[in-house]
């Protein structure tokens, strides 16, 4: 048996709810087939009131072993460093988090908020939120850059707003089946297996991207074209597996015609949602995209784009996602 405790701080429960959409394994399979003992979870916990509190204290004091501590949501530090904007079981949540993180074999930050701060840290960061081991891209966060769980690992970040259920279940199965050592992390704590390819990898609009053909507007306009040029898609610079492991087994934002918001990257939401930045590609001198596909620069990008446009076949200017 592998014991798991799941708590939520400055969160929306979206990651929990997303997890309930999992199949192979489902959340029930995790318990019944993979021996994960969910000691407590805010949505699934059986214990109420004082019983739940006794349980939390026994874990926080190390009286009961804790293998996996999953944390969803930001750590809320306000007002004035007291953490009183987020009380849980009669204490600031942050006090629970620090004790539990030091008792756990592995600490997993689920979702953007826990990993990097996410939406709650957007200017003016009203409740002083912070990620578990990062604030946006800066290492440190609540637990500090040098934090290591009992197993000697930094916080495992599974970002996404919300996370895809498979990203979570597969990592939990890896831990439960003794493969924690195989989880390679990238330079911002993400499991490489899910966060090395791009959102663009597997996007059905790739051919339009290749020939630099733009979707002109939403709705019927997304029956053709790529969402990068006008509609603000971050697919080419976002490390996610959204188009490899589809959402709800059916689709993804970009397939459905919605630009990728880059939610697996620490800067999400980009530009702090300033006026003029939502669903619009940011441009330099009116025409050149400001943010370019990862690994390119403006000179090479523009040369390549000009060539591609010239070479674009006629079908690339027509609807291909036809009725």
């Amino acid at each position: 048996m592998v014991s798991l405790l799941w708590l939520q701080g400055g969160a929306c429960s979206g990651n929990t709810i997303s997890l309930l959409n999992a199949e192979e394994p489902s959340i029930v399979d995790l318990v019944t087939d993979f021996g994960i003992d969910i000691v407590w979870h805010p949505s699934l916990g059986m214990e109420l009131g004082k019983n739940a509190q006794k349980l939390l204290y026994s874990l926080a004091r190390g009286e009961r072993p804790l293998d996996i501590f999953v944390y969803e949501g930001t750590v809320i530090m306000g007002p004035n460093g007291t953490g009183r904007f987020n009380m849980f079981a009669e204490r600031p949540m942050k006090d629970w988090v620090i004790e539990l993180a030091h008792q756990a074999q592995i600490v997993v930050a689920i979702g953007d908020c826990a990993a990097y701060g996410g939406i709650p840290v957007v200017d003016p960061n009203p409740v002083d939120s912070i990620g578990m081991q990062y604030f946006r891209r800066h290492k440190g966060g609540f637990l500090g850059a040098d934090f290591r769980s009992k197993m000697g690992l930094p916080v495992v970040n599974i970002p996404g707003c919300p996370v895809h259920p498979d990203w979570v279940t597969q990592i939990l199965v890896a831990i439960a089946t003794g493969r924690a050592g195989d989880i390679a992390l990238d330079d911002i704590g993400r499991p490489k297996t899910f966060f090395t390819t791009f959102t663009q990898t597997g996007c059905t609009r790739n051919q339009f991207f290749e020939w630099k053909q733009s979707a002109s507007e939403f709705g019927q306009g997304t029956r053709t074209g790529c969402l990068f040029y006008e509609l603000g898609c971050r697919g080419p610079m976002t490390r996610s597996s959204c188009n490899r492991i589809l959402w709800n087994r059916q689709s993804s934002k970009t397939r459905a015609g919605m630009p990728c918001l880059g939610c697996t990257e620490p800067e999400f939401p980009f530009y702090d949602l300033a006026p003029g930045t939502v669903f619009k590609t940011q441009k330099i001198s009116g025409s050149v995209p400001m943010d370019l596909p990862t690994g390119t620069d403006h000179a090479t990008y523009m040369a390549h784009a000009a060539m591609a446009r010239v070479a674009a076949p006629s079908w690339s200017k027509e609807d291909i996602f036809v009725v």
Partner: protein
Amino acid sequence: MATLDLLVSPLGRVEGDLDLAVKIDDGVVSDAWTTASMFRGFEIILRGKDPQAGLIVTPRICGICGGSHLYKAVYALDTAWKTEVPVNATLVRNIAQACETIQSIPRWFYALFAIDLTNKNYAKSPNYAEAVRRFAPFVGACYEPAIVISSKPVEIYAIFGGQWPHSSFMIPGGVMSAPSLSDVTRSIAILDWWREHWLEKMWLGGSVDRWLENKTWDDVQTWMNENKGHYESDCGFFLRYAQEIGLDKFGQGVGRFLAPGTFFQPELYTHPTIEGRNAALISRAGVYDGKTWHEFDQARIKEDVTHSFYEGKKFLHPFEGVTEPIDPEEGRKHGKYTWSKSPRYDVPGIGYVPLEVGPLARQIIAGNPNHAAHQNYDPLIYNCYQQMGPSVMLRAFARMHEAARYYKMVRQWLTEIKLHDRFYIKPVERAEGQGFGATEAARGFLADWIVLKDGKIANYQVITPTAWNVSPRDGQENRGPMESAFMGVNVADAEDPVELGHVARSFDSCLVCTVHAYDGKSGAELAEFQLNGNGSC
């Protein structure tokens, strides 16, 4: 007389941050305070941002009803920007909103509500063993299939919106997607699979159409005894067992109800306005004061912060609304006790009062015989309400009943999409304006008020279902709906107060749903009360 103060924390299953303080005299709750214990300040974040920022930010207020947040946020912008919304887009928005709610129905029932039916306090009930067999968490015969099946309706959401939860595919003027034929046919196939495998096979033990013939509580009894399938179904069993353990006897609440309505008749809402909203609704808006129905008017809503952790004792309409958090320690000195503001509604002839929102409210409004041809009229739950009054059981029953209704609607809308017509009409992005958008999240009233100035958000206020239901006392010292529902509840075991859990969960409070997430009695009494609670752990 034995008086016991009890602080139950954490209580709310779904999101852990609901604290409940109750006073118990001889095993009966004599007073109650609900405390939302987290504040995230999303309304503060939205100030000064892109007008469309609410489409990204508000779904993240609540991962359980994020699609509902998107739905009302887009109508707030549609009304502010005076957009034109094509028929197809309204259909797709309706389908998506309804699919989120039908996902929530089995998920809420089996994962959150029914597991308490297996509490050892009910071990002496004749049907206890059967309840455990069906509903025990993780291992119950119905638990896993229902959880897995509940993820099906949102597959349809993903087909239109890319993913669920947290898409932002509804935008002013329409939707981002333009489905193809196979998107629609696949959606129909998924929906019918869900109907067959959960709604008919597990829940009703019979056909949807036969269920929808039930117009009264007596009809339900006839249905129950008609055949073994109905009697042994989860619905049949739940209604029998709930009465056996007395869930029909407690959790009454304030006895007044509010529904903002949802789903638009596409042709009637191509130019969304605040004034034109009620008439275009399919699932109706309205207020029920315990005796009669009234038209819904958003202008009659105000939020009180007398007992909430915000500056002062302001009582403002959301267009003028402010969100000025204070340190809870400081607030407690002034009788404040929660992050939830107190939304109150000016009921004609009564004045500003707390109202219950949610499926029961919706169904009581649906029982109003005065309706236009395109609007839902359904007398069943209103009849049950008249026969036995509100209770934990009736709240749960109202919600479950909606599964059949929503199925029918989504099925119909899917046939109405005209694939070759438009899904989006590019709007003029107006720099100034104000808008209002509302919907029925699974757990009730959800609405945004937006004020735009200089191409930016000047003010953004959200009122959630949880804010209505778990609201604290207001300036008049009226308890919030859930606080009222706790009054008079018998608590058998103060160490494991399952009855309080039932009441809380019958409202399906989703605390995180309270964006601005305090008191009646004097502050001093409350502080003492809290102290007792702390002393007990």
